[in-house]
């Protein structure tokens, strides 16, 4: 088994938190993983991405070759498109539909959606709405993780466990908000 994921978003949207949950769930389930991240300058409101690779055997490259990703999981619609060339012909796209417009030349949103819909398997999620419903607009990353969880080769229970681990220092209320965000995302993706 081998499962390659491109995580995408804008610096500050919490894609490394998504990665933390997937990494630890994978380790718990006895899988190997490698996850290349971006730190430093790009984190300041720029495009950020992480290559996350899961397998049941040794993984060599930290980077995913072009055309080999099973999944693009993106917290921002324009960022989804930036990594399309990594996607397998039959790969899946799970993308937020909530734009992060910190640039002046942001394209027409409908056109971005049209492009995303060219992927054979695609799920567009209103992450802002669902995160608000869960209790915090900051929980959009967990909404998107929940939506992607229907594709991931990981048990729902392992993912939920590490959401708990990730947020437990911030108190039970924040843990609950993020678990709720995960559940809402998962439900929305199933529809």
């Amino acid at each position, binding site marked *: 088994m081998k499962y390659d994921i491109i995580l995408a978003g804008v610096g500050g949207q919490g894609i490394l938190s998504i990665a933390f949950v997937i990494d630890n769930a994978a380790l718990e389930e006895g899988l190997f993983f490698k996850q290349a991240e*971006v*730190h430093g*300058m790009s984190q300041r409101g720029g495009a950020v991405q992480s290559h996350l690779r899961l397998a049941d055997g040794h993984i060599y*490259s930290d*980077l995913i070759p072009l055309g080999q990703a099973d999944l693009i999981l993106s917290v921002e619609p324009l960022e989804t498109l930036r990594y399309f060339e990594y996607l397998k012909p039959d790969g899946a796209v799970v993308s937020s539909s909530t734009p992060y417009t910190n640039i002046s030349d942001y394209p027409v949103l409908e056109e971005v959606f049209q492009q995303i819909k060219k992927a054979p398997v695609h799920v567009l999620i209103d992450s802002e709405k669902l995160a608000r419903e869960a209790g915090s607009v900051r929980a959009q990353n967990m909404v998107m993780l929940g939506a992607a969880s229907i594709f991931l080769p990981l048990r729902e229970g392992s993912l939920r466990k590490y959401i708990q681990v990730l947020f437990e220092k911030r108190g039970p209320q924040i843990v609950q908000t993020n678990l709720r965000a995960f559940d809402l995302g998962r439900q929305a993706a199933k529809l």
Partner: protein
Amino acid sequence: MERIVLLGDEAVALAAIQAGLTAAYSYPGTPASEIMEFLVRNSEGGRKFTAKWCVNEKVACEEALGVSFAGKRAMVSFKHVGLNVAADPFINAAITGANGGLVVVVADDPGMHSSQDEQDSRYYADFARILCLEPANHQEAYNMTREAFDLSEKFRIPVMLRLVTRLAHSRSSVETSAAREQNKDLPYGTWQDWTLLPGNARRRFRILLDRQDELLEYSENTVYNQLVLNPAGGRLGVVVTGIAYNYFKEVAAGLPAEPSYLKISTYPFPVAKLRRLIEQVDEILVIEEGYPFVERFLRGVTGIPGKVIRGKMDGSLPASGELTPDLVARALGLPEKTGLKAGEFKLAARPPQLCVGCPHADTYKALNEALRDFPRPVVFSDIGCYTLGALPPYNAIQTCVCMGASVSMAKGGAEAGIHPSVAVIGDSTFAHSGITPLLDAVHSDTAMTVVILDNGTVAMTGTQPSFGTGEPLDRLVAGLGLDPNHLRVIVPLPKNHQENVKVIKEELSHQGLSVIIARRECIQIVGEKKRS
């Protein structure tokens, strides 16, 4: 033993702790910062080692050298250009030699994700005539760091550990081994070895040169340099160094048979193993992350008769930038793959930018307005978040070269007739390398204006502590001998805009040295305080 999830940087840090580290020092810089962050986090709560951020890399390296002199194990870590700053103690530490194990971790940034160049630190290790270890993955990063301390004490030299961004900032699981105690019984270094008067230095250098054969012997025999001869793999032999090994193994599975290869992870590189590979093949492909270091040695002046050498120097691989599995696949003659294309759709770029509410934005706005009426002003800038002031909407700076260069270049510029000649430098960068050039400018009362952006932190690399901030910074600048009438402090906030423009204009028109400190806390720090 235990399996834990670690960044490459963290695998190095944990290995150092478990190797019996007594003290570690660093200055923040991507992609090395997470080494010290891990050490600082784990030195709290009564553990018995020191982990400190330092004012700059030279100081960090010298502090580590002092620990080694005392017979204890020390580590210093920084990004590749940090080694330029620390080059003086680094090179001379090879001459004094190490007493307690001394490991110098350098994280190179091929592709310049967060850097001004992509220099390859293996040249520095070669220049200093010391061992360099280059792990290919997390487990090797852990194991080789443990071993680096032993090697340093065995050969009595500093040992370099070279990381690259993709390993430093990649996360995977690592198996750890039993921790070792700190050194207890090593005596201090002897003055004859550590006082580099010419007589001592000549003798020490001879010892270092005489040790080269032992270093080579280590490289020939270590398990990290793996020669795999596969007669079924055809007439191509592949030399892979560091993480290039990963890309090779990833894509070579797509070839009919895996070529013979030599994985190199220690330097001086294993010459005998390399010869054995070359004898078996007609064509050699060298794959390295960084400069064509091994390739250039292999080619020499005349190449190898009867053999074709390929790599970065003949265009088989790009001469600059980062390797990818796709580039390596192409060099091996594999067909290119690609996924979906966004087609004609124009993807708007999303470069990094100053945060909403950043104090630097207000300073740049005021500075731009104050400079508007001058025909040819120049703003020399420096390394930090504020370098983003080069981009729209600010377009506020004209240079960024190296730590501290804003102040020295502004002085040179002023002396060449530029007016106004302005330097813009952050508080931590000022402490790192701005104090000495400012002292220079005080000495000649150069007609220039230095703006110190005091946001109280090293923001770009993750809000590490700054050494030159707040009121002590004012006293420091005044103490250099600056005319107190031309030391001004402003608070960069939109509501102070007009007043700040006025202060800056006044100082720009002064025919001597002025320092304006623009002081407001980084909004990332404000946010962190709110959350905690």
